[in-house]
């Protein structure tokens, strides 16, 4: 069975479920929609009471309780309609094998062992940073296989492959914030993928 693409409204709703409270630009980045399309979906969802907008410095879009419930129901329906539960559950298991290693790598990016003690990685040793990035690239090759299985089961997962590759490419080209720090960093996208797998399979944290 080939799953049909997820509708834009569910893509936007689910982006807020997995990325949390956030602004329009990030909703667009997470979903791959243009900002005006994403905004239009957000306004429709707001009318239905599924999302709300908060103004101010920490302002942005967030899910309501009703929106969270609607997302859970629709994401489960989509999973079952596509007959994708077994494939996604299998991919989740393979994700869990990679997850501790990814966290090791991110930890090593932030803190480095120096003479038995750990100290903040101040990124003044290019050889060390290259070692960490080398391991991230190696892990990414294995993560690609998991992402491919996921997108084959449900096309909406394809967005993670694009976002992870983008973060890795930026980090490799010297934009050091794209390992752990930026809102589009490898760790941030990975963290959202983890949340998405839990939400999709209905596994509580």
């Amino acid at each position, binding site marked *: 069975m080939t799953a049909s693409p997820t509708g834009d409204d569910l893509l936007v709703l689910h982006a807020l479920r*997995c*990325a*949390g*409270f*956030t602004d329009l630009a990030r909703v667009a980045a997470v979903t791959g929609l243009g900002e005006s399309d994403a905004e239009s979906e957000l306004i429709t969802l707001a009318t239905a009471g599924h999302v709300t907008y908060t103004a101010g410095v*920490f302002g*942005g879009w*967030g899910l309501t309780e009703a929106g969270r419930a609607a997302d859970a129901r629709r994401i489960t329906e989509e999973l079952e309609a596509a007959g994708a539960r077994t494939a996604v559950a299998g991919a989740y*298991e*393979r994700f*869990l*094998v990679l997850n*501790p*290693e990814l*966290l*090791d*790598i*991110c*930890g*090593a990016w*932030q*803190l480095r*062992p*120096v*003479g*038995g*003690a750990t*100290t903040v990685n101040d990124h003044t040793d290019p050889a060390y940073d290259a*070692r*960490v990035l*080398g*391991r991230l690239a*190696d*892990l990414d090759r*294995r993560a690609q296989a998991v992402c491919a299985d996921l997108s084959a089961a449900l096309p909406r997962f394809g967005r993670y492959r694009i976002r992870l590759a983008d973060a890795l490419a930026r980090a490799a080209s010297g934009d050091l914030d794209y390992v*752990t*720090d930026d809102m589009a960093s490898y*760790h*941030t996208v990975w*963290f*959202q993928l*983890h*949340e998405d797998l839990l939400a999709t399979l209905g596994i509580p*944290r």
Partner: protein
Amino acid sequence: MRWIHPLSPDTGETADVIGGKAYGLVLLRRLGLPVPPGFVIGTDACRAFLRDGRLPDGLDDELAVAVAALEETTDRRLGGPGRPLAVSVRSGARESMPGMMTTILNLGLTAAATAALETETETDDTRFALDARLRFLYGFATATTDLTAEALDAVVNEATGHDPGDARRLSRAIHEVEAAIGRRAGRPVPDDAAEQLRLAVAAVFSSWDTPRATTYRELHAIPHDLGTAVIVQAMVFGNRDDRSGTGVAFSRDPNTGEPVPFGEVLFGRQGEDVVSGRSSTLPLRDLADREPEVWTALLDALDRVEAHHRDTCYLEFTFEAGELWLLQARPGRFTGAAAVRLATDLADEGVIGRHEALLRVSPHDLRHARTRRLAATGGAGVLARGLGACPGVVAGRVATTADGAVRMAAEGPVILVRPETSPLDMRGIAVAAGIVTARGGPASHAAIVARTMGKPAVVGVAGLTVTGASVRAGGQVLPEGTLISIDGTGGEVVLGSPSVTTAATDPHLLRLLEWADEVSGDTSGRPADQRLHAAHAALRRHP
């Protein structure tokens, strides 16, 4: 024997051959301390296995001989019949690679041996033997198949209805886990103990080359061609009865360097429960009241190992039915202000000279010593303790949700307290002054995000629960809005505002720097690291 060496006082092999962990165990035996009997398969066997893809010639026969000797020593039989022998099978490379390779506990608990273990237990509680069998299956499954502990948890929860306390349900869980392993491996779990042991040894060897272990070595600059040793020891059961348990101990407090034993203990549990943070531990001192003989023996062991290293030490221990056993020993590796305190105290105690004290403190330690810390309280007033994930001391009002944190942050600093963090908490973390999570280690999502944002954080606070708008920790219920302070270095959570120490007020550092000036002959006012550096330079010229 060519591949196998006994864990005995006269084993003279280096850590290159038998690995760092076994080397430490041999040392403990030499110091006359209690170590469960066992043997170690050398790293050369691992290298042969990785090269040829099979256990080296002759290892099978040596294993049979070594097991027979262990059966003789313990008066037990691996896999039964009669008094059953269960063993732990642990990795141990020259360089420590914590958590990266495979461990299998309770190996040899075949169906018959499990039943025999049940009957020899004095209490009428059959859960002990069943729990031990289940733990073996977990270790065996994760070592020999791609099943994860999480996947097995799901099987167990389904079978027990989240209530593993009931023996009948526990039996059903064991049955379901066996079935899951059988499906995944394409053959049933072997019920022959010798076959279990061969598979386990091969699995530990193979785990040297898992991607995660490879990554760890790459990041820590450990050569890839060393291989790991495998330590096989008679099991001691910290979960046998209520006079059993497990723990970890430092001979001094690793947070402050204070010369008081420090650590954690868990009654009625096995060692992994402490290291994994799955269970809530008690302060080490509780051992003194509940098991005074174990406590005395442990203090004696800490003293002897510390005297041998002329340095603080770390021990992992288990006690079974009131008898102490040591499972691992290494130097304490203190850093920061604790390293300064340790060096000056050891000099005052006459264990080392002042020159050596100076050389034991590194410029990194001085840098870390400048981090603000909660003032030492000797443990009093500490509400809960986890792992420091991002240094710094901060006070704030408890918020239990991201939304609550955003709302409360308008009125003053907030500490976000969560079971663990998800992306949905990012907004709360962004406005919070500090973060506390019940679960997770130093490389959890929460720890990584906290460091990204430079927020003091304490993770893995076992025993902390978040229910609705309140937090329960250390036997107290804290409603949202309660003022707490956290120390992201030592992992302490305390009530109220903090009293803080900094390097400028640390009497031990001031003394160490006076010694530094005496050595360098330069008493002009300079920053601490320059004073230490000058002393190091002088000592290296004229040691």
